[in-house]
């Protein structure tokens, strides 16, 4: 399979999946006990105002019709207006997407940087005490709830030691947005103070996300390394007397990394799921807090918009992982 046909294949599947997803959320939003027209009209609206809002938002028409109308707007890039922020949802999302992306990307990177080396160490020293220790620690980190880790980290590093800020993304005003990644923007602007502030704010949330991800990567890398160590090609190279260091650092590592990459999509999924909850704990102004808040306020346009956005993120990350895999595995390239 070549790159183009893979991307096309993904796209062909993506459209019906997203349509289905939107339909599910659409129905969900409509069984909410609160009347969206009341929400839209505002708190002190009169009966006429509510009725007027109902008609304006086409809430009096049959559901399928409303759904088709919604899709028509989505295709035109209009996701509607949030009842809560009174802003176009597209604006809300573009404002919040970078925060979540910055967090998850850093989280996945950190998970990889922690997880891969430890997994390699574990796999190469199978059944040593170090291996047992690393396995124990990783299984522990898979077992703890991210929101609980988050709170323990806050308790220790922010409240007791006072080293890192408790919540938020930055102390001062954000630097001029270019990428929306505050750390990068501040760096580009040459604003060291803001950069450090952004950095200090992102440490704990990143760590919270990275720890379970790293645990998954450690386990997976270990398995891949063990598999590679026991692979016939390594047995052959050993029988041919190639130096162990060459076998390990060139051949085994490459085999193991190849299969670890396949797990990146999973880790990204874990991180994004984690972010939904973690953001609430750290008051991180990203998609996760937005999603939770929109759901809690029955802000159904916002819920649909954020679901769509996360669905696209998920699909994109899977696509990227597939492309990466193709790029590094010669067998995928033909």
């Amino acid at each position, binding site marked *: 399979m070549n790159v183009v046909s893979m991307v096309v294949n993904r796209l062909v*599947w993506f459209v*019906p*999946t*997203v349509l*289905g*997803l939107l339909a*599910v*959320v659409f129905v*969900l*939003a409509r*069984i*909410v*006990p609160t009347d969206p027209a009341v929400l839209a009209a505002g708190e002190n609206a009169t009966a006429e105002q509510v009725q007027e809002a109902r008609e304006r938002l086409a809430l009096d028409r049959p559901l399928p019709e409303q759904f088709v109308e919604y899709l028509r707007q989505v295709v035109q890039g209009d996701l509607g207006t949030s009842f809560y922020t009174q802003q176009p949802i597209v604006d809300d999302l573009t404002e919040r997407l970078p925060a979540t992306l910055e967090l998850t990307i850093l989280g996945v990177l950190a998970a990889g940087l922690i997880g891969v080396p430890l997994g390699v160490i574990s796999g190469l020293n199978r059944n040593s005490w170090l291996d047992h220790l690393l396995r124990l620690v990783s*299984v*522990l980190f*898979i*077992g*703890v*709830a991210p*929101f*609980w880790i988050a*709170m*323990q980290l*806050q*308790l220790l590093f922010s*409240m*007791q030691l006072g080293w890192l800020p408790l919540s938020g993304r930055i102390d001062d005003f954000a630097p001029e947005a270019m990428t929306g990644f505050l750390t990068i923007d501040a760096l580009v602007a040459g604003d060291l103070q803001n950069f450090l502030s952004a950095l200090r704010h992102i440490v704990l949330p990143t760590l919270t996300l990275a720890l379970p991800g790293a645990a998954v990567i450690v386990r997976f890398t270990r398995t891949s390394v*063990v*598999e590679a160590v*026991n692979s016939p090609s390594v047995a052959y190279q050993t029988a041919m007397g190639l130096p162990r260091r060459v076998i390990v650092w060139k051949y085994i590592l490459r085999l193991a990394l190849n299969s670890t990459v396949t797990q990146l999509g999973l880790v990204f*999924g874990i991180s*994004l*799921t984690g972010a*939904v*909850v973690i953001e*609430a*704990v750290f008051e991180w102004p990203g998609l996760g807090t937005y*999603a*939770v808040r929109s*759901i*809690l306020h*029955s802000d159904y346009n916002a*819920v649909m918009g*954020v*679901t769509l956005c*996360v*669905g696209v993120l*998920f*699909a994109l990350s899977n696509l990227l992982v597939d492309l990466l895999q193709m790029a590094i595995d010669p067998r995928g390239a033909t």
Partner: protein
Amino acid sequence: MINLITSIVRHRTALVGLILLSLVVAVAIAAPLIVPYPEDAQTFHIERRLLPPSSEALFGTDRMGGDIFSRVVLGARMTLLITATVVLSGVLIGVPIGLVAGYYNNGISLVLGGGAEILLAVPQIILAIAITQSLGPSIGSVILALSVTYWPFWARIVFTETRSMCHETFVESAIALGVSAWRVIFLHILPNIASSIVVRTTTAIGTTAFASATLGFLGLGPPPPSPEWGRMIAESRDYLPDAWWYALAPGLALLLTVLGCTLFGDGLRDILDPKTRRRG
């Protein structure tokens, strides 16, 4: 069966996992009998609120003066009830759908498989939050929300395994001999993929316990004063850093539960999966 039991007992990881898991279940069942303050699930003792751990209250007391240890143990019942129901319905919905979608290659399988993929297209927790919010916070809505959103995990794995089973010679020849679809599915395919389902289910117990605690943490679980772990952890946030003990016990309880499932699942996979076994 006897074989399986002896392998589990011999397999250290599986054994530790099983012991942890049984411990949690046993504690949950016997909860009202073993906790020091069984009435603390519902009643307040304002005079005892926010006390640090002591010999009377092993893990301290909460904002209502409830003994946290008692409440966590009593909360195990709720977690167990939610988890067991969700996992059971996940299996009951997901496995048949996966079998049918994997065995047939027609419109029905497309719809079923597509349905599963739709629900897997965003983090489960987002959909679960939306459903619980629509239904209002209660045990029932948590169970319903998680059941509706978690079955695709079973459907997907059963689907993939069934598809590959369909290319096995013994299945192909059974089909060629005109054996009915139901017989092929239940007599030839299901027994061969049962071990993957079991492994998947074991780890799913942990995931579900996580998810239900997450809903509780966001305030969508059973309403207060129910001793739900996630909610207890969330409550503690208002009393940090002084009441550092507040979130300790519920967090550890959740950890032990998930740990038990992960270890037991790992062990079972080793034991049941001949591929890894051969590798030694």
